[in-house]
């Protein structure tokens, strides 16, 4: 049957695509996100997704979108934190820091002795010998992060889809074929991140004349999620969210390059004393084999509403089949015994 675990670098290649395409992905650098939600809108505009939500405040800082779903394929989270939490994040980041990093000194207040006259330092500057004491831990910070489908290396939704609606494209992305999807919803349970959803409110309701014109939705009832703008990738264009992001918090390109940029950026932030910076999804040995859209976070994933240790549900599948196989054999054996024993 072959292993269900694919290599992180070439999920596309393993999917039978004849032509070699580098795997595409995002690098979302949340340290430069300004929380503008242009990504949410550009995505909806490009994909002509319906609005969702009750048009009520969620009371969750500036986030009134809530979560990813069938109609919202980009979601910006807002997290307000005080100094205690910030210090905790720095500490947990420090524990993740590998050897070879510049020494991080004790937290100090007031002017930094020997601080370079170039405030903030410059990327690429040799910072050895310079004081890299982090600036005063601010009393407050506001984290912002744009969430999206992870296009996992080992994608749970893809693995469980019975119809072949979900498929791995030549770019290594995972896309729902709307004309194939029968709306069974198995994929919804298969995603460890809670991304994919059916576009179905579960009710039948008359539409007012205004709604009719508003947004005709041919994909009502099917599973919906980010396609990484497959229809833009095929002509060599950038996904709508990445193109529109004012600060390039959302970067797009070959996944390999994205991971490299991400690692560089973490190094840079660490050298500026921001030890809370860490990557999410870059580790090819994590439960989903690494993801197609790596994130740079400034705190634990849970703070952003992301699962800390996502596992693709089909990970254990070979083992499960073996166990099931053993159980089946056992059942057969028991049945045979029952019959053999029962003959008199």
């Amino acid at each position, binding site marked *: 049957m072959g292993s269900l675990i694919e290599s992180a670098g070439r999920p596309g290649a393993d999917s039978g695509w004849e032509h070699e395409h580098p795997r595409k992905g995002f690098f979302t650098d949340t340290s430069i996100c300004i929380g503008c939600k242009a990504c949410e809108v550009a995505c909806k505009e490009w994909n002509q997704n319906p609005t969702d939500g009750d048009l009520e405040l969620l*009371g969750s800082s500036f986030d009134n979108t809530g979560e990813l779903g069938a109609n919202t394929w980009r979601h910006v989270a807002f997290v307000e934190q005080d100094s205690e939490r910030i210090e905790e994040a720095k500490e947990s980041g420090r524990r993740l820091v590998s050897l070879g990093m510049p020494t991080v000194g004790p937290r100090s207040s007031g002017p930094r002795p020997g601080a370079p006259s170039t405030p903030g330092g410059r990327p690429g500057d040799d910072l050895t010998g310079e004081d890299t004491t982090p600036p005063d831990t601010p009393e407050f910070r506001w984290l912002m992060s744009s969430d999206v489908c992870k296009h996992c290396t080992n994608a749970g939704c893809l693995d469980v889809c019975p119809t072949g609606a979900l498929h791995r494209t030549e770019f290594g992305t995972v896309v729902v074929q709307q004309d194939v999807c029968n709306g069974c919803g198995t994929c919804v349970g298969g995603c460890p991140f809670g991304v994919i959803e059916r576009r179905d409110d579960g009710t039948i309701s008359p539409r007012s004349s205004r709604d009719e014109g508003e947004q005709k939705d041919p994909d009502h009832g099917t599973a919906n999620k980010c396609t990484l703008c497959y229809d833009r990738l095929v002509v060599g264009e950038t996904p709508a969210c990445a193109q529109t992001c004012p600060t390039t918090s959302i970067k797009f390109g070959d996944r390999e390059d994205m991971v490299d940029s991400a690692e560089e950026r973490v190094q840079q932030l660490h050298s500026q004393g921001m030890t809370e910076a860490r990557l999410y999804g870059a580790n090819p040995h994590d439960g989903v084999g690494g993801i197609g859209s790596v994130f740079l976070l400034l705190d634990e994933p849970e703070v952003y509403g992301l699962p800390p240790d996502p596992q693709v549900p089909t990970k254990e599948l070979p083992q499960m089949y073996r166990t099931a196989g053993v159980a089946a054999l056992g059942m057969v054996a028991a049945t045979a015994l029952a019959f053999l024993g029962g003959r008199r």
Partner: protein
Amino acid sequence: MANADCIVIQGSNMAEAHPVGYQWVMEARSRGARVIHVDPRFSRTSANADKHLPIRAGTDIVLLGALINHVIANDLWFTDYVKAFTNASSIIEGDFADSEDLDGLFSGFDPATGTYDNASWQYADASADGADGADGGHGASTATGVPHGESHGESHGSGGPQLEHGEPARDETLQDPRCVFQILKRHYARYTAEMVEEACGISRADFEYLARSMTDNSGPERTTCFAYAVGWTQHVGGAQFIRAAGVLQLLLGNMGRPGGGIMALRGHATIQGSTDIPTLFNLLPGYLPMPKAGAHDSFEDYVDSIGSKSQKGFWAESEAYAVNLLKAWWGDAATAENDWAFDYLPRLTGAHGTYQTTMRMLEDGLDGFFLLGQNPAVGSANGRMQRLGMSHLKWMVVRDFSMIESATWWKEGPEIESGELKTEDIATEMFFLPAANHTEKAGSFTQTQRLVQWRQQAVTPPGDCRSELAFMFELGQRLRERLRDSTDPRDRPLLDLTWDYPTDEHGEPDPESVLKEINGYHVGGEQDGVPLSSYTQITADGTTAGGCWIYTGVYADGVNQAARRKPGSEQDSTAAEWAWAWPANRRILYNRASADADGKPWSERKKYVWWDEDTQRWTGKDIPDFPADKHPHDLGDADEGGAAALAGNDAFVMQADGRGWLFAPSGMVDGPLPTHYETVESAIPNPLYGQQANPTQMTITDRDNMNAPGITGTAAEGEVYPYVFTTYRLTEHHTAGGMSRFLPYLAELQPELFCEVSPELAEEVGLEQNGWATVITPRSAIEARVLVTRRMRPLQAAGRTVHQIGIPYHWAQGTEAVVSGDAVNDLIGMNLDANTQIQNSKVIACALRPGRRPRGPALRDLVADFQDRAGISPTTAESTLDIGPTTAEPSAELAVDDPRGADTASGEEH
């Protein structure tokens, strides 16, 4: 801004209001620049800055003044720059008295009118020439052409009024106690770090951080940039906030330099264009002033008031610019004999701004009102008075995309709910003419950095939708048709108007032909009709015509320069071949100051424009903002006036003396130096002076426009409106909501009106997260959802805890949009800055209580109840508020039961 080493964002929420522009701030940050955000709220900008300094709203001059003081006291100013390019050495008249002498006032104040006579602010004459010209001696005091002494903001064009000539007396050693530098030093001597702590609520450590950041990053090698928006303009005294930054940036040598300067972040697609080519009462295109009755009865008076021919700089050519415009408008009917049809221009008699017009409406002085893509029922201060005013009109024409609230107020506005107005009793005739949007018409926008960008048309407008161009052209044609046989001289201006634009097969006028007229063209002779290429070609003898002299060049060589689209990736960072910036495609104004007195760049790192010895011309990365061949050591020919009079180091070419003004002898009606005042509603005594509030403030005295008592009331009365709120924009919405609340994609991002309060305030008042709160001011009361957040922080100022509340103002009551809510502008009164007639929307006294607001007539009862408790009423209105010139008839004289609305069901009793 990407080239800045330090960026101070103050009075602006740039990341939220100009997100795509903010990428350049992030670029600067990635190169190591420090970004500091000074704002009452911790916003998305603060989250992406290096430091946020929470400030008590309205105290910016204390902070900026303290920075000025710090720079001077510690000798951190850029000496060579200041000496070469500013008026630091100029000597001021002997009888000038500063706010230090007069406890907050300057010399020349007339309490009866609430205005200043700026005669004592003028430069002392270098020559002994006190000859009286047409304006009677020291030029600037009659610079406005107004009868000697009064200075009025509305009469000034952009360069400020003229000086008789450009050479004042100077002390280059900067020691003379009457020289600008010493006056400046003395004026800000008490603006200390301690004062900042007391007045602004900013700690000494934070102040020092800000000061050090700026001074470390100014000088020959480094530059600091300011960015501001309506967080500065929407104050009484707002113009002085900006001037204070100007003074500071001049002292630090940041003006005219790459990564330096002051970035004005304006808020609408072409608001810059709508000031350059102004649909504003006080200006003509190119910042020529509208003529004023009594002062500009003759063309000569008018021209002299703008700029004397002997002053330095380009405003000396004001006659040519004016002739140009008049020729463009009245063509052959404008001749030398009839002073170019100057008499065709109507005259001002004072301020006729939008709020004065509102008062006129309420007094039945206005029949008809056009709205061209604006929503004053929601976006103008004192929303209730705006809507009541509309009920007095005979007719209104609303041109917009959707049914904005300024079109539906008669049907479902808040006054219908409160019972103050009844639809069946409203006589106002309403016309809604659907407008074409930006894809359905070609035309130009002028962006905030003076860049004129042409848009191409993609589709044709549907149904009855038309562009404003088609509408205005049509209207003009129909008016002229109706007046065709008129013999009344008052109709000549309409009939003689050049109104002959080519139209396409749909009858739509060609927008490019209008742009060509704006650019200007030769008249007569061989070159008849040929577009001008530069404003230096403009003549005063009628051989050129053009609608807006600063835009001359946009159609240079007969090519629509604003339509140029050479991709940025194929150009350097100046990108001079993308569109066109006025004037003359210069990207940084006053860029002569990026080189020293010898014409050499201040540093290699910050080189921008410099003198090339070989070619004997100025050159560089931008079009030099200076006569191209004027040597750096040129002394200038004072007798010539104009550009010829400029010396080689007179970088500030639009100023009458060619210098950057640390001290402004003219141009500002409330003082030559920015000075801190509290708002009229402030409960905090002015920590610096006895003069509590800005003495020139324009107050509209009216029972519907009353103010909280501030320090004038008793202690109990002062506690009725104990908090302060400030207004702002959210990224997801746009101004009064006409282009965002009607869009589901934007409405769902921010669906409801909310107010931001600190946890401390929430506890004090009893507010719940995501619950409801009612905000009450002397004008009205609204309800909003509650967002409790640590981003709002109580400040310690003047020995007390100041609670500030943040409220975004995008919502309005109505059923046409996707989302609705109360209109925040209903809370805000019309208190206007005298320089600009812009209202204070940023520091408003209020009361706050949990729960929703009352419905129906009970709403007005609630407001009245608070007014009573605060001791304010129609009869006390005059005495507590009338500290400035009233520009409307005091309506407190109206009988108390005189209904405001047209035939209201319930009269208004207080």
